[in-house]
């Protein structure tokens, strides 16, 4: 190849990659514009604060009332619940995989966990509906097993593979020299894991937790099937809730394009988008901060 051609070839590849990267950012941007354009009408009609903090969601009443608070609370309750289940279990499983399990067992378990990620969400919803909810109904003596608790449980299991695989990567990224140094000082394996490995991996563990939460807050089908779907502010975890995602999915079919209800659903979309954006932003900030600490002062 002559030199000139190589030069253009290199440049061409560079621009091609820049184009691909630029496109994905552009698409993200367009999605946000579209969401906002469709949803802005509702903010204008009922007011942003009334929409966000409104306690009632009655799209079919006359006149219709659009207050998103029940759904916002529903999404938060279910997501936090899922996090309480997925994060400790996920990190625990990752610790077992990375630090305790012998190699062949680790490979088998990892394959199984990754398989969990491949199950369609409607199947999780189905299992939650048919298997889990009757058990929870009997166990806690409730009138219905379809509630925030069941939804959290299902979502927690769904978020587990994300938390496990990213946490495990984070733990494996801790240099073996730390393990050796600690063991050689007469620390047990457990002391080494708790005092050295976990703190060293903590930015990765945080990222795993946040991505798990992101997975939970965005999930639609499974929560629609098991959360009970009442548009009320829940008073306990055993009350039925409706999440933002479930509401959009459930009601989109009955709206008139461009109508107030349609706009209200896009308004919900904007809120959901903002929530996930904030979660990601926090992750990034925490990530940047802790990696500075790792280079700098203390665990």
């Amino acid at each position, binding site marked *: 190849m002559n030199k000139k051609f190589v030069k253009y070839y290199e440049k061409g590849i560079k621009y091609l990659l820049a184009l691909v990267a630029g496109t994905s950012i552009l698409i993200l941007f367009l999605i946000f514009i579209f969401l906002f354009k469709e949803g802005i009408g509702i903010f204008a009609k009922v007011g942003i604060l009334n929409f966000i903090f409104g306690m009632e969601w009655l799209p079919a009443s006359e006149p219709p009332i659009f207050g998103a608070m029940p759904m916002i609370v529903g999404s938060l309750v279910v997501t936090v619940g899922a996090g309480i289940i997925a994060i400790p279990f996920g990190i625990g499983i990752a610790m077992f995989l990375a630090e305790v399990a*012998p*190699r062949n067992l680790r490979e088998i378990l990892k394959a199984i966990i990754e398989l969990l990620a491949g199950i369609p969400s409607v199947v999780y919803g189905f299992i939650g509906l048919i298997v889990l909810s009757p058990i929870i109904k009997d166990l806690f003596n409730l009138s219905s097993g379809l509630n925030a608790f069941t939804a959290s449980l299902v979502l927690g299991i769904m978020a587990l593979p994300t938390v496990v695989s990213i946490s495990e990567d984070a733990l494996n990224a801790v*240099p073996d*020299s*730390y*393990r*050796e*140094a*600690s*063991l*050689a*000082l*007469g*620390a*047990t394996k457990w*002391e080494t894991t708790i*005092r*050295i490995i976990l*703190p*060293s991996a903590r930015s990765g563990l945080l990222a795993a937790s946040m991505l798990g939460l992101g997975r939970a807050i965005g999930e639609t089908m499974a929560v629609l099937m098991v959360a009970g779907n009442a548009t009320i502010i829940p008073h306990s975890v055993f009350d039925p809730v409706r999440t933002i995602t479930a509401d959009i999915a459930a009601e989109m079919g009955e709206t008139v394009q461009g109508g107030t209800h349609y706009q209200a659903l896009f308004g919900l979309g904007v809120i959901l988008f903002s929530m996930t954006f904030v979660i990601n932003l926090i992750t990034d900030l925490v990530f940047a901060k802790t990696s500075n600490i*790792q*280079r*700098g*002062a*203390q*665990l």
Partner: protein
Amino acid sequence: MINKMEAKHLDFYYKDTQALFNINLPVEKNAVTALIGPSGCGKSTFLRTLNRMNDVIEKTKVVGEVLMDNKNIYDPDVDPVELRKKVGMVFQQPNPFPISIFDNIAYGPRIHGIKNKQKLQELVESSLKSAALWDEVKDRLHDSALGLSGGQQQRLVIARVLAVEPEMILMDEPASALDPISTSKLEELVRELKNNYTIVIVTHNMQQAARISDYTSFFLNGKLIEYDQTNIIFTAPREKQTEDYITGRFG
């Protein structure tokens, strides 16, 4: 001469591969014993059998005995965690934890149950002094250990070992990642430390072995070829292979 440790008929296997063959080697108390030999000769593997660090590698097997104060450290009633408190180890690459200098040194004492702040402070200071690092770091004990130079990090790691108050220190090519000035500081430190500790050091730098050790053992292909006082090994070795190695004919 008093033996702090003695390997007797020691064989070692990684899976089905035998890495050490019938090693018989005494380690004299309060002296420096150097292990020399070409790469892959088994000297590091042997060193790691002395504090049972090989235990953490899957599918390894030890046959034979390593006596410490006349007690076999591979006896079933010996807890390797307890053993490693008595037999400290310094690795080839300096491996401070990504925490402050103080916390690095205090790590060992803390896991062994010392909570008293004053006691910890005294231990940190005395360990850093023994490792000839105190003057360089006394004003920044709470800065990250990763900000130290390679030579300082290696002395920090030695101080971390000393803080556990071991009886022996094993060193696995501790100067191989250091510059000449740091190396000479480290060698000086090793000579200093032997007054209070029994030291076994792996090195492939023969001048280093000659400079700092009292006894030298020459390993080749997993076998101990020759063991004697260092000056004898380097001036009048009995074995042809030893002579060939120290005169630089292979290695």
